[in-house]
Structures are given as structure tokens and as C-alpha cells.
């Protein structure tokens, strides 16, 4: 019962992510590549997915997207935003835009 709910929520999150990503890419691909943190290859694939494919991809027991940071510093900055350090959001933005984009390895 609880697992079913969880699966449902994961599927919804996946689907909204995919749909948002796709509409961002169709609107302005270059800006979307920055905002999503993916490479152009990935953006091209997402752009071309049909609605049926989106639904199929979303139906999974795993989330399709994951954290964009692998760095404790960025996590601290983002979660502490507004409370502690001065301009933590800007600091995180500088660090995050220097991260490599998520791409494909053939």
C-alpha cells in the first residue's frame, strides 16, 4: 500500500521532470542546457521524446534525475541559504556552473 503510493509519486516526479525539461529545451535549448545541467546530446534526446516515450520512461521505481552537486560545500550553501553565509546562493551558482554537464558515454 505504502509502496504503491511511493511508486506513484516517483512516477509523477519523473513525468513532471521530463515534461518540464522537454518544454524548456523546446523553448530555448541553450538556456535549458544551463538550467538542467545536461550536455547537448542529452538535451537533443529529451527534445525528441514522444509523449508515449515520456510516459514509458517515467514509469519506473527509480527517480530519473539526481542531485546536481557532488560537493559538500554546495549542499551546505544551498541548504543554508538566507540563514548563514553572505550570498550563499551566488556562491553556489559560481560553483555549480563550473561543474561538468551530465552527458552520455556512448
Amino acid at each position, binding site marked *: 500500500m505504502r509502496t504503491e503510493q511511493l511508486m506513484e509519486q516517483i512516477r509523477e516526479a519523473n513525468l513532471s521532470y521530463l515534461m518540464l525539461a522537454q518544454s524548456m529545451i523546446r523553448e*530555448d*535549448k*541553450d*538556456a535549458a*542546457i*544551463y*538550467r538542467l545541467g545536461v*550536455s*547537448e546530446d542529452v538535451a537533443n534526446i529529451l527534445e525528441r521524446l514522444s509523449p508515449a516515450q515520456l510516459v514509458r520512461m517515467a514509469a519506473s521505481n527509480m527517480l530519473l534525475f539526481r542531485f546536481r552537486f557532488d*560537493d559538500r*560545500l554546495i549542499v551546505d550553501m544551498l541548504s543554508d541559504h538566507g540563514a548563514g*553565509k*553572505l*550570498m550563499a*546562493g*551566488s*556562491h553556489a*551558482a*559560481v*560553483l555549480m*556552473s*563550473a561543474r561538468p*554537464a551530465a552527458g552520455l558515454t556512448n
Partner: protein
Amino acid sequence: MVARSRSVLSDAEQVQLAAELAALGARLQVLETETDLSRERLLRLYKEVRGASPPKGMLPFSTDWFMSWMPNIHSSIFINIYNYLRCHTASEGIRAALRAYRLYLEHVEVHGLERVLSFTRAWSLLRFVDGKLLKTAPCRKCGGHYVVHSMDLHQNYVCGLCHVPSRAGKTRKAPVASTADLDEVIVA
């Protein structure tokens, strides 16, 4: 003349670009450098877009502005976005600058910051980087890349966000007044 032989389509593109630049608050000199349109046409376009004559006088040419605390953070955000776009997308040149500047404005708005970096400043920053007067260097503590003078030593560089100067952010009014050069005034 070059103007005669240019195609209508590329002319339209140039006008479009000039209008976009003017709308973002770029000075006339930026428009002149980035398009091949004649000065008179740009002047007319500028007036039409902004509803006022362009400010006269030279562009701010000091690289030191980019070194003071708040401007340095803002220009570093901008150049990181720009470099990301250059690295991961097909945008180049002025198009990449425009897009990066829009994303920078978005950042400023989302975080409730002041728009410290004007488009003309952002554009000058890229010119200074091209001319090797400025570059980016990694901070020893956080690893982020920040705008620095090319000629300084950077082995032990620590950015203004890891090591916040004691007075930083306390002078709310003073930095605004000092950065309010001509292009900020017309934006306001």
C-alpha cells in the same frame, strides 16, 4: 559600401540583435562594435527602443571595478554562466553573452540581489578577458572560478565569498553610488 551588398535577411538579424542589446541597456558603443549597421541607424534604433538619446562619453574602461567585492561576485557569476554556455552549447560570441546576461539577470532576481553588473560592464568584461587583461582563477578554498587580474599571482587565491571582508555587504548605499556610472543610470 558594405551596407549595399548585405542581404535583407542578415540586415534584419542585425537590427534584431541591436534592438535586443539596446533593450538590455547596452551602450551605443556596444551596438556599434557588435553590428555592421551605420551609426545613424543605430542611433535611431536606440532612441526608439529606449525612448531617450544614448548617453555620451566613453565606456567605463577600468579593470579595477571588477576587483571590488560585490562587482567581483556578480561578474564571476556572469562569466561562469558564459563559460558554461560556450563549453556546452553552440552559442558563441555576442549571442552567448546575451544569453548568459539574461541568465545572470534571472539569478539576481531569484536571489533578490541588486543588478550590479550592467550589460555594458559584462560585455567589457568579456573584452578584457579576450585582451588577456582579466581572467578567471580558482579559489583555493571552494574551487570556484573568479575574475582576477591576469598579471596578479593566483596560487593562493581565496575568493571574496570564502573570505568575506569585514565591511562587505554593510555599506548598502555606497556601492550603489560608486557603480552608478552612465549605463546604470539609464537602466534605472
